[in-house]
C-alpha cells in the first residue's frame, strides 16, 4: 500500500449555526453565533460572515457580550475555557481556564467581574446534574488565566441555556428545571422555589422549556411543553406568588424573550411563527408566520431595533422590530438523513441535496454558502409533529444541467403511497429551474433509482427510473402533443421494461449513452436504449446487486457492480464475462465523471475505508484506512473550477475533481492535499471583507457611479479636498465667505495654490505656534466683530472649531490680511 501522508480528510463547510442563541451587538451591526468550534461574526446588513473567532478546542456552548465593554465578547466551550474576544478585529484577548466543561454562560452588569456558568456537578458522579457557578475573573494582564475561584449559586439546574436568566438588572436570577422554577435573590441571598404539577387535567404538560425575565418589572415568563406561557409575579414570597397564563402555541414554546424596554414579549416554537405579545395587554398579538421551520432561539438586539430567530434548519432570520424580515443567514441544512443522493449541479457546480422539507438546496462548495432552495413540493408546509409530509427522495441532473428530475413521495400508514415525478427545465432568463412536467404515480411502488442519459451529443434526453413494482420506465421529452401554441414539449413514458418480475434496484447509463444497465436483484441486464432490446444479462450469484457503475473514458468497456455478499465485480462488456472480482464490503461505489477513477467506500469494523482505483489496473491509485467512523452512504465527485497541478502519484486523482462525503453524523468532509490547503490559507488572508457593504460586483459598479455623482456637482475645490485634508481651513474660509465679499479670483489664486503646496514637513512643532496665533487672532476678530457682526459669525465658528491646524503662520496672516482688506472696503461701499 502506498503511503499518503499529505492527503487529509477535512471538514468542509456547512457548520451548524443554530446550536445556541445568537447575540446581536450594541450597534446592531454584527451578529455573533456559536458554530462548531468557533464563533462566527456576521454582518446583519449583508448576511456575510466577517470573522471566525477560532481558538476553542471543543464545541462552543455560549456567546455573551461583556456587560462592561460592548466591543468584547465572552465565549464558553465544552473544552473548559471561557475566552474573551474583540469581535471587531477578531482578536483573542484572554483565555480563562475553568477546568471543567462549560455548558452555558450568563452575566449581568450588576455583577462586575463575575460571570455565571453552568457546569456539571463535580461532587456528584452522575453527569446529568448541573450547577450554576459564579466565577470571579481574575484581573491580570496575562493571556492565559486560571480562574479557580468558583462559588456555587444554584444546584440542580438545567443545562439548557434558555432556562437560566437574570432579572431586573441582575437583582435576581431565575432558573427552571423540569417542573420547578427557582428564583435566587442576590441581595437577600435567598432562593424561592415554585413547582407545578406534572400534568393538568386536560393533559397538558407543564414542563418548563424556557424562561425570560422582564427587564424593568418583577415578572418572569416561562414557556411550557404544552405551548402555554406563564407570567409569574410576586415571586419574592413563598406563598403569595401569582401567575397568569397565555396560550397560543399548540406545541412546546422553545424560546421566550422580552424586548429591552419590556413592552413586548416574543415567543416562538415549532409552528415557526414569531408571536409578539404586548406586555400587560396580552390579548393583542402580532404574528410573523411562515418563517420556514421551527424556531429554536429568539434574541433581541440591545437597542430593540432588531429581533433575530434561529431555526431548526440551520438558519438565522433577522427581523426588524416592525415585524419585517430584513436578512436571512442560511447554513447548510442538515436533516436526519439525506434521502436524495448528493449531486453536483453541472451549471452552478454547487452541491445539491435535500434540505428543508420539500426543498432541494443548492450549496456552493467553494464559497461555503447556501445559494438557494428550490421548492420541489410546492405545498404549504404544516408545522405539526407526527404529520407525514411529502419528501424529496430522488433527484437527478442531466449532463448539461438543463433538466432536473425529482421524485417526491409521501407514505401514510394505511394509505397508498403517493409518488410524483417532476421534471424541471432550467430557465435562462430567471436562472432557476421551472417546473415542466408533473407525472403523478409514475410507478406503483417506491422508486429505487433514477438516472439521466449522460451522453452529451444525443438528440433527445432520456430518463430512466426503476421501481419496486418490478418495472423500469424510460421517459423521454416529446414534441408537444397538442396544437396549443403556449404548450412546450413535455415528458412522457417511452418504454416500460421488466425482467421476470424481479425488482430492479439500480440503473446506470454508459458514458456515451449507448447502453443501459439495470440490475434486477442478482442479475444485471444490459439494454440498448435506441431499440430497447435486451442485449445481454450478467449475473454473479447469489446475492443482489447493490451498486452499478460504468467505467469512463479508456475504461468504458467495464461495468462494475457491488453485491450484497461483499463482492466487487468488474465485467468486460466486449466479452460479456467477468474480468475480475474481489471481496470487499462496499457501501458506496461511484465514478469520477472526468477521469477513469472510481471511488469505493468500504465498511470494515465500524469505520470506513476509501479506495480509489482504475478498473483497468490491479493496484488502487489511493487508499486510506478509517476515513471516518460509521458507514458512508453519500458521496460525490465535485469537478474543480481549476485543475490542480499535482504530480504526485497518490494525489493525482484529486486534480480534476474533489471527493466530498457525508459521515453518518451528517458532517460534510472532503480530501485535500497539503499544497491546496496552503493555497487556500493564503487566499483567505487576502480576502478582507468590508463590514458595511459586501464588495459585490454590483457594489463596485454602483459605488463608482456614486463617487462620480458626488464629484460632479461640486467644483474642483471639493474634489481636491479629499487628498489634502490639511488645507480644509483655507477652503472652508473661501467657501463660507459670501462670494460678493471676496476679493478677485486672481488675488486669491496664488494663496490657494500655496495652500495646496503644503508639505508634510511642517510638522508638530509648528502647531503650538499656530495655537498661540489663534488666541491672538481671536482677540483681533472680537474687535472686528463690533464693526461687522453679520459676516463675522461663520468665520469665527470655523476658526474656533479648527481641530488640526496645519496652515503655516505666513498663510494665516495672509488670510487675515485678505479679510481685513475685505472688510475695510465693504462698509465704505455701504456708506457711500
Amino acid at each position, binding site marked *: 500500500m502506498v503511503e499518503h501522508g499529505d492527503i487529509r480528510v477535512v471538514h468542509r463547510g456547512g457548520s451548524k449555526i443554530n446550536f445556541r442563541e445568537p447575540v446581536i451587538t450594541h450597534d446592531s451591526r454584527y451578529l455573533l453565533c456559536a458554530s462548531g468550534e468557533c464563533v462566527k461574526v456576521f454582518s446583519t446588513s449583508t448576511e456575510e460572515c466577517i470573522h471566525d473567532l477560532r481558538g476553542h478546542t471543543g464545541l462552543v456552548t455560549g456567546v455573551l457580550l461583556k456587560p462592561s465593554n460592548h466591543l468584547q465578547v465572552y465565549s464558553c466551550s465544552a473544552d473548559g475555557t471561557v475566552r474573551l474576544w474583540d469581535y471587531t478585529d477578531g482578536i483573542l484577548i484572554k483565555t480563562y481556564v475553568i477546568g471543567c466543561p462549560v455548558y452555558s454562560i450568563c452575566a449581568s452588569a450588576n455583577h462586575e467581574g463575575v460571570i455565571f456558568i453552568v457546569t456539571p456537578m463535580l461532587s456528584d458522579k452522575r453527569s446529568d446534574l448541573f450547577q450554576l457557578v459564579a466565577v470571579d475573573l481574575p484581573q491580570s494582564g496575562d493571556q492565559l488565566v486560571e480562574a479557580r475561584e468558583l462559588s456555587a449559586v444554584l444546584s440542580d439546574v438545567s443545562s439548557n441555556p434558555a432556562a437560566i436568566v437574570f432579572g431586573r438588572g441582575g437583582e435576581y436570577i431565575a432558573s427552571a428545571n423540569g417542573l420547578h422554577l427557582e428564583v435566587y435573590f442576590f441581595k437577600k441571598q435567598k432562593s424561592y422555589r415554585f413547582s407545578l404539577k406534572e400534568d393538568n387535567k386536560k393533559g397538558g404538560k407543564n414542563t418548563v422549556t424556557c424562561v425570560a425575565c422582564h427587564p424593568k418589572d418583577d415578572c418572569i415568563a416561562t414557556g411550557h411543553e404544552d405551548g402555554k406561557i406563564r407570567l409569574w409575579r410576586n415571586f419574592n414570597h413563598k406563598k403569595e406568588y401569582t401567575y397568569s397564563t397565555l396560550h397560543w402555541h399548540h406545541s412546546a414554546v422553545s424560546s421566550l424573550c422580552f424586548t429591552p424596554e419590556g413592552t413586548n414579549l416574543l415567543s416562538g416554537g415549532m409552528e415557526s411563527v414569531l408571536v409578539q405579545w404586548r406586555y400587560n395587554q396580552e390579548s393583542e398579538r402580532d404574528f410573523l408566520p411562515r418563517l420556514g421551520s421551527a424556531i429554536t432561539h429568539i434574541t433581541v438586539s440591545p437597542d430593540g431595533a432588531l429581533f433575530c430567530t434561529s431555526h431548526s434548519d440551520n438558519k438565522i432570520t433577522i427581523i426588524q422590530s416592525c415585524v419585517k424580515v430584513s436578512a436571512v443567514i442560511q447554513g447548510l441544512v442538515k436533516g436526519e438523513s439525506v434521502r436524495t443522493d448528493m449531486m453536483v449541479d453541472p451549471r452552478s457546480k454547487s452541491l445539491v441535496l435535500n434540505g428543508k422539507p420539500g426543498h432541494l438546496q443548492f450549496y456552493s462548495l467553494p464559497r461555503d454558502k447556501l445559494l438557494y432552495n428550490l421548492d420541489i413540493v410546492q405545498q404549504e408546509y404544516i408545522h405539526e409533529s407526527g*404529520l407525514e409530509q411529502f419528501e424529496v427522495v430522488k433527484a437527478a441532473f442531466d449532463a448539461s444541467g438543463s433538466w432536473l428530475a425529482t421524485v417526491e413521495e409521501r407514505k401514510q400508514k394505511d394509505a*397508498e403511497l403517493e409518488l410524483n415525478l417532476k421534471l424541471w427545465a432550467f430557465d435562462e432568463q430567471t436562472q432557476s429551474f421551472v417546473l415542466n412536467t408533473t407525472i403523478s404515480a409514475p410507478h406503483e411502488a417506491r422508486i429505487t433509482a433514477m438516472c439521466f442519459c449522460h451522453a452529451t451529443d444525443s438528440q433527445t434526453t432520456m430518463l430512466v427510473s426503476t421501481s419496486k413494482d418490478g418495472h423500469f420506465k424510460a421517459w423521454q421529452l416529446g414534441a408537444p402533443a397538442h396544437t396549443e401554441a403556449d404548450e412546450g414539449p413535455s415528458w412522457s413514458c417511452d418504454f416500460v421494461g421488466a425482467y421476470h418480475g424481479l425488482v430492479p434496484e439500480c440503473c446506470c447509463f454508459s458514458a456515451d449513452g449507448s447502453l443501459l444497465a439495470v440490475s434486477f436483484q442478482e442479475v444485471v441486464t444490459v439494454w440498448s436504449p435506441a431499440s430497447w432490446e435486451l442485449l445481454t444479462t450478467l449475473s454473479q450469484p447469489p446475492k443482489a446487486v447493490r451498486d452499478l457503475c460504468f467505467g469512463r473514458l479508456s475504461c468504458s468497456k467495464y461495468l462494475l457492480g457491488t453485491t450484497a455478499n461483499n463482492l466487487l465485480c468488474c465485467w468486460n462488456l466486449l466479452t460479456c464475462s467477468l474480468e475480475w472480482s474481489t471481496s470487499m464490503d462496499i457501501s458506496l461505489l461511484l465514478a469520477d465523471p472526468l477521469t477513469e477513477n472510481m471511488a469505493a467506500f468500504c465498511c470494515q469494523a465500524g469505520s470506513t475505508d476509501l479506495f480509489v482505483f482504475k478498473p483497468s489496473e490491479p493496484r488502487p491509485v489511493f487508499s486510506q484506512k478509517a476515513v471516518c467512523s460509521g458507514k458512508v452512504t453519500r458521496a460525490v465527485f465535485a469537478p474543480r473550477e481549476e485543475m490542480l497541478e499535482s504530480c504526485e502519484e497518490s494525489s493525482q486523482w484529486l486534480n480534476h475533481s474533489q471527493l466530498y462525503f457525508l459521515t453518518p453524523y451528517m458532517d460534510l468532509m472532503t480530501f485535500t492535499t497539503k499544497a491546496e490547503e496552503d493555497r487556500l490559507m493564503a487566499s483567505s488572508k487576502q480576502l478582507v471583507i468590508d463590514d458595511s457593504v459586501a464588495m459585490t460586483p454590483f457594489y463596485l459598479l454602483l459605488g463608482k457611479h456614486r463617487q462620480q455623482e458626488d464629484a460632479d456637482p461640486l467644483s474642483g475645490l471639493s474634489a481636491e479636498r479629499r487628498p489634502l485634508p490639511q488645507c480644509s481651513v483655507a477652503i472652508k474660509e473661501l467657501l463660507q465667505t459670501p462670494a460678493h465679499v471676496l476679493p478677485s479670483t486672481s488675488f486669491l489664486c496664488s494663496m490657494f495654490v500655496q495652500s495646496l503646496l503644503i508639505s508634510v514637513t511642517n510638522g508638530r512643532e509648528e502647531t503650538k505656534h499656530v495655537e498661540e496665533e489663534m488666541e491672538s487672532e481671536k482677540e483681533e476678530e472680537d474687535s472686528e466683530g463690533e464693526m461687522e457682526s453679520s459676516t463675522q459669525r461663520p468665520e469665527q465658528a470655523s476658526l474656533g472649531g479648527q481641530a488640526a491646524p496645519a496652515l503655516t503662520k505666513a498663510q494665516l496672516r495672509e488670510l487675515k490680511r485678505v479679510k481685513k482688506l475685505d472688510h475695510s472696503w465693504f462698509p465704505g461701499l455701504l456708506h457711500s
Partner: protein
Amino acid sequence: MASFKPTKVQVYPKLGEKVTQDTLYWKNYKAPVQIKEFGAITNIDFSPVAPHNFAVTAFTRIHIYGPFSQEPVKTFTRFKDTAYCGRFRSDGQLLVAGCEDSVVRLFDVSGKVALRMFKGHTKAVHITDFTSDRYQILTGSDDYTCRLWDIPNATELNTYQEHTDYIRCGVTSKLNRDLFITGSYDHTLKLFDARADKSVMTMDHGQPVESLLLYPSEGLLVSAGGRHVKVWDLLKGGQPLVSLKNHHKTVTCLCLSSSGHRLLSASLDRHVKVYNTTNYKVVHNFDYAASILSLALAPDDESIVVGMTNSILSIKHRKSLDESKEISGQQRRQPSYRVFVKGKNYVPKQDDYLVSKPVKQHLAKYDKQLKKFNVSKALDTALETWTRLRKPEITVAVIKELDRRGTLKNALAGRDEQGLARLLNFLIGNVVDPRFAPVLVTAAEMILDIYQSVIGQSSVVDRQLLRLQELLEREIDYQQDLLEVLGMLDTMFASSLPRKEVPSLDFFNVSVSYDIIDSLLTCQPWSNGKM
C-alpha cells in the same frame, strides 16, 4: 417570510375531444346570421365571379344575396309554382331554375323577366345546370328524363330516358362540355356523354340519390343518398372507393371546401359533418336547429350558408384575423374591469419616481380558509354547487390537501343532514372516476366511520348510502371483468410473440410488458404538460 402556498389543483388531461387544427379552423366563424325565407330552402348556389353573390331557392322565389347583405339584392318571383335549383352560369351572368310546373326558366342576373323558357318536361324539374361550354342547359325531371337544351334558340337537343325514377340530382363536368352525371331515386348514378345516345357508365348507390358532387379533378365522384355518402372512382370505371355512414338520417347535400381537402355533408339529422378527403375521417361537426336541405360554401370558405326545412337561412361568416384574437383576449373583461386596471398599464415617464407596492397574492376562497386553518369552512367552500359540478378536481384537491394536513376527519365531521347529503352526492358522482378514486375512497371511509352511528336517522342519507353501495358493487364487477380481459390479452400476446433467444448467462427468457395494454386497461398515470 414565505407567502402562503395555495392548494395545488391537479391538472388532468382533458377527456373530451382534442383540439385539432380542423377544430380551430371550423370554429373560427362568427355567430350565424339568420334570415327567414318563405318556404323550405332547397338550393343555394354561389356565383363564380366576385363579389360572389349567392342564389337561394325557396318556395316560389329565388333571392340573390350579396356576400354581407342581410337583405336580398335581387329577387326572381316569376314562377307559377315552387322553384327548384337556381344555378349560376360560370360567368355569373345567367341563372337557370326549374319549377314544379315543368318549365325551365333562364334569367339574366340583372333583369327580371325570364329570357328563355324551356318547355318539354311533363313533370317538375328538380335539377338544372349549365354545361361547361355555357351554351347548353342540362335538366332533370320527375318524368324520369333528363334533357339537354340549346340556349340561343331554346330548343331541345337530346333526351335521355334511362332512369326509372325521379331524377333529383345532377352535375355537369367543368372540364368537358359533353359529360354530365345524374342521380335518381332508382338508386343509380348515370354518366352521360352528349355525343352518345346512351349512358356510358352506371353506378349503383343502393339508396335514392339525393346529391352529387364532382371533385375539381373530376376523377372522383361523391354521391349522397339515404344515410350513406359514397365516393366513386370514375377513372376506374365507377369503382366504389369509400362508403361513409356518419349521419343517422338522409344526407341531403354535399359540398367541398375551397382547398378541396375537406368534404362537407349536410343531413336531415341537423348536422353538417366535415371529412378529411385523404382518410375520410370526420374531423368536425356543426349542429343546426332544423333539418338541413341545402348547404354551400363561399369561395375561400369565407362563409357557410345552410338552408333548412323551417325556411331559415343561416349564414356564418369567417372571423377576420385580428377579430379572432380580440375575442379570446376579451373574454374576461367585465364592466368593472376598467376600474381595476385603472392606471395599471401606465408607463412611467423618465423622471417619475416609482413607488413600488407589494403585489397582493390572490387566493381562492378555500385557500383563504385553509390559511386560517378553518378546515370545515374550506371544505364547505369547495363543495359549493358550481365547483362541485363544474370543477370536481378543485373539490378533490381540497379534500386531498385536508388529508395531507391530517385534518380531513375534523372537516368531515359535525355536518347536518343537508351537508352530509351534499357530501355523499359528490362522492356518488365522482368516487369511481379513476382520477379521483384514490382520494375519495379515503374520504368515503372516513365518512362511514364518523357517521355510522347516525345511519337510520335520515331517509335522505340512507338512500344515498345505498346508492353508493350499489355503485361500488357495480364498479367492483366492472374491474373484475377488465382484469379478465387483461389476462386474456396477455396470453394472446405471449403466444403471438416470437420466442427470441438472448445471449445470456442464465437460462431465463425475456418478457417485456406492454405498456399499451396496461394503459388501456388499468388506471394510467396522468401526466400533464406545463403547469
